[in-house]
């Protein structure tokens, strides 16, 4: 059990190192690649925390598609970030204060891996039993995703759909000309010719 925790702590520290490198870098390509590496280490982290489905998704979506989209967007953007001119003291201070408060509060959180922590008492045992008896699907995550929490997943699918449509609308190149204008143009061009 201790070895598991040590691997955990190591991976999470690697993530912190990548995030600090992200703070320092000013080149866009490094930013994109570091974000991809961050997602990949997060996927490893999810495997050590027993979330295989989440790790699968993070590796394919976070490290794969999201990097491709960033690279595709990068082609149109300036390659270097400008040095920040303004004062960064107030944002940094507020972040440090908020972080200190959160870390202070973390002593009240349950330790990692305890069976007695409140999250494991509520509906999760019902889901595990029900997935065996009522639904009959071995992968509990799938049965909760599609059956017990079907409404959530429906909403998320519609959100993905809406975001896709919004991007298509924002990035389309076609200039819309109404039918009236088109016929007017045709008439004018016809007269001139």
């Amino acid at each position: 059990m201790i070895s598991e925790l040590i691997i955990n702590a190591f991976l999470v520290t690697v993530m912190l190192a990548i995030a600090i490198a992200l703070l320092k870098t000013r080149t866009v390509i490094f930013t994109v690649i570091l974000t991809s590496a961050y997602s990949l280490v997060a996927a490893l982290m999810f495997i050590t925390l027993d979330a295989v489905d989440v790790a699968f998704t993070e590796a394919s979506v976070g490290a794969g598609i999201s990097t491709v989209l960033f690279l595709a967007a990068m082609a149109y953007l300036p390659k270097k970030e400008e040095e920040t001119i303004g004062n960064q003291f107030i944002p940094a201070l507020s972040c440090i204060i908020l972080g200190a408060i959160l870390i202070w509060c973390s002593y009240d959180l349950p330790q990692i891996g305890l069976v007695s922590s409140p999250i494991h008492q509520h509906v999760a045992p019902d889901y595990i039993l029900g997935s065996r008896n009522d639904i009959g699907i071995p992968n509990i995550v799938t049965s909760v995703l599609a059956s017990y929490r079907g409404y959530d997943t429906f909403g998320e699918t519609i959100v993905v759909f809406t975001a896709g449509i919004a991007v298509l609308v924002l990035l389309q190149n076609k200039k819309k000309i109404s039918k009236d204008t088109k016929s007017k143009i045709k008439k004018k061009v016809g007269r001139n010719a």
Partner: protein
Amino acid sequence: MISSSMGIWNYWIVFLLMMIGLFLVIGRKNFLKKIVGLAIFQTSVFLLYITFGKITGATPPILNEALDKVYSNPLPHVLILTAIVVGVATTALGLSLVLRINSEYGSIEEDDISAQDLVDYHDEIETNKKLKSKFVK
């Protein structure tokens, strides 16, 4: 002792990551960096959720009749699984907004854009004044 401090170490790093993400969003002026900061913040929240669901010595939540074991909590996994995909869709939306801003203003630095807006605003006021003076005459 070691295991108890290790048990909280994850939370500390998650909070530090969150703060780094927040700083990238509010402290940096480059829009692409802001979106990357949002992605980092998101992933740290995912880590926090998955950390809650972990049980020491448990197996991943896939039923196996042969061994009667303890399974990790599947509920956070479900919530985060969908959140990741929605996260990439919203990131793409943010990126497309950045592209549009870049093609309108020729820059993605916040200071530059607000300066351009200010110039436009003053121009507008001056043209309004000219029009008014013409009208009064």
